[in-house]
């Protein structure tokens, strides 16, 4: 047998699934301490009602993911600038008649501002999270977090609350003024984990053949780098060496997932940078991500699972054309891809018109006649402009478009 080089040895080792043991994980799991705090009456630990499924996290702990009765903690960036992201998540729930709540008693986690400006503090951030969780608890629905930053930020705050009594006391003092208890859910759940859990059911209802598509995946930093032990890893996906969400969905839907060397790099969002210092954001997004993807994988699409990543990777491509950089890869979230595969209307639900990198070649490769659906959508807009229609409702959007079932 030929002797392997060091690099080949590493690749060989990484090509096999790893067995992980939660009991010897190098990081701390605070779930038992949550139970202790609940027993002492310090916190209310919200539990899931109804069906849930369990998946392994990075070091082997099994994480519960609720299937329905979920309280949708919306994302500022989704709802403000990429509304098709949020509407695709809810459209998927509606396709399976899964019970959910879209609250108006919810604020931003304010984490984007905190990571951008530092203009807050640990108490303020923990109180904002706890107020939102208390609001969810009051409805009986279990929080499902749409934003990757909210998800990571809340996991970090949960650790801080568990470890620091003075922080708990101060947050409880503030919550008392609102008549709210200090609530922590038994799991902090990101929507992409629900998408991962539902992927087989999506496959059963898939209408669009995606086998012609090559896609790259950008795993979102705040999903799997902050409190790393609480992200889903699957031995079948990348041998358990990277988070499985997004990639597992794409593979299930028949997309050819192509690898690239800078998968670990962030998108360049930078929180402050994307708003007031975008030279960094643009350069990083194009040079380290998009251009590398094109050079190494030439994808039709790149897919991610967080607000800032979709915005940064999509919007940064225009200016790079002036420098003759290789750009032109449309960017979608996993939820939008799943919805599209199940026949969601490209504009009423997926809202492609909010994305700026040209998505038309991608839809054409899927044999989706986008012009027909764009004309239909323009008809909606004409009615809205004329005042004969107040807006698009779920009644307009729920039914999948007429495509030949595959």
């Amino acid at each position, binding site marked *: 047998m030929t002797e392997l080089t060091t690099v080949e040895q590493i690749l060989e080792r990484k090509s096999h699934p790893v067995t992980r043991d939660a009991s010897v994980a*190098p*990081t701390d799991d605070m779930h038992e301490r949550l139970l202790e705090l609940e027993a002492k009456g310090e916190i209310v630990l919200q539990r899931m009602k109804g069906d849930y499924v369990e998946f392994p996290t990075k070091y082997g702990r099994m994480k519960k993911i609720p299937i329905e009765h979920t309280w949708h903690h*919306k994302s*500022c*960036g*989704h*709802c*403000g*600038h990429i*509304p098709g992201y*949020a509407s695709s998540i809810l*459209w998927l729930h509606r396709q399976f008649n899964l019970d959910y709540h*879209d609250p*108006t008693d*919810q*604020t*931003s986690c*304010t984490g*984007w*501002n905190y*990571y951008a*400006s*530092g203009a*807050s*503090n*640990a108490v*303020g951030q923990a*109180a*904002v999270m706890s*107020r939102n969780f208390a609001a969810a608890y009051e409805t009986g629905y279990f929080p499902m977090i749409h934003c990757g930053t909210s998800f990571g930020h809340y996991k*970090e705050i949960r650790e801080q609350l568990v470890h620091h009594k003075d922080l708990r006391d101060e947050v409880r003092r*503030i919550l008392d003024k*609102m008549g709210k208890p200090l609530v922590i859910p038994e799991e902090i759940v990101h929507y992409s984990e629900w998408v991962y859990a539902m992927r087989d059911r999506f496959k059963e209802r898939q209408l669009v053949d995606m086998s012609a598509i090559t896609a790259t995946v950008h795993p979102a930093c705040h999903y799997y*780098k902050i409190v790393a032990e609480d992200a889903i890893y699957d031995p079948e996906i990348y041998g358990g060496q990277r988070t499985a969400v997004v990639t597992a969905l794409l593979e299930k839907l028949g997309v050819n997932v192509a690898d690239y060397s800078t998968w670990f*790099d*962030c998108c360049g*969002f*930078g*929180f*402050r940078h994307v*708003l*007031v210092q*975008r030279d*960094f954001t*643009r*350069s*990083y997004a194009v040079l*380290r991500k998009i251009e590398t993807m094109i050079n190494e994988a030439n994808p039709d699409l790149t897919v991610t699972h967080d607000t800032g990543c979709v915005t940064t990777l999509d*919007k940064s491509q*225009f200016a790079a054309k002036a420098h003759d950089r290789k750009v032109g890869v449309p960017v979608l979230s996993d939820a939008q891809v799943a919805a599209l595969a199940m026949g969601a209307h490209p*504009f*009423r639900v997926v809202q492609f*018109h*909010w994305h*700026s990198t040209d998505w038309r070649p991608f839809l054409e490769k899927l044999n989706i006649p986008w012009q027909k659906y764009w004309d239909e*959508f323009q008809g909606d*807009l004409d009615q809205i402009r004329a005042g004969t229609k*107040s807006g*698009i409702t779920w009644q307009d*959007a729920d039914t999948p478009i007429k495509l030949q079932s595959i």
Partner: protein
Amino acid sequence: MPTTIENWNPGKAVDRHPEATYEEKERLFLEVKNDTRYEDFLYGCYECGICVSACPSARFYDFSPRVIAQAMAREDVERIYDIITEDIWNCAQCFSCVRCPRQNNPGGLVTILREVSLKNGLQESKDALQGYSRVIYKVMLKGNQVSPDMLQPDFFPDWGPWVQNFTQNMHVWRKAIPMDSIRGLTDVAWRTDRKTLLELYTIWFESGNMDIIKELDESLYDLLTDVMNEELEEG
């Protein structure tokens, strides 16, 4: 002064900021060190550089999460002052650096440094946040970080003609979204109950958040407190 074993201090920074006294620099460092989270974020440093290799800002700026962890671990007051005045706003807050084999969190240390910088009104931080006040106004008052009406061609020329197209169609596009909580709204990302916003204002006042805003931008502070107090009084 001749170097002796008593005063030999290898690796320590020279005084690059004589405009601030050592006592003032030390006071800022102690404020960072006394933060509840400090001990969770710093365990020492191998100097392995794994954090630097993963750091996006290290590729584009003279910025190093390793130097931050090192300076903190050595309690190098001069170097920490350099960092707080020159480096912290380059961090992208992606937390790629937390792959540290010693479980350090340089990004978290930057967060504390930023807070301390703002609380103490450092001019460098005010400069770094120029143009950002409208975002703070939005998130603290409306409970959303961004809204559709913030996407204006003057602010986002590098996003291309899409922004112009969006601006012209914003009102009708916003009505063409099936979610009840979003449909038709342009000044906020989603509809938020008034009671929810009053609770948010209570958090800002009770947590000491408003004191930070006062140091950062007094006119923004006046604007926010006027509106919030009026709303809270109405109940």
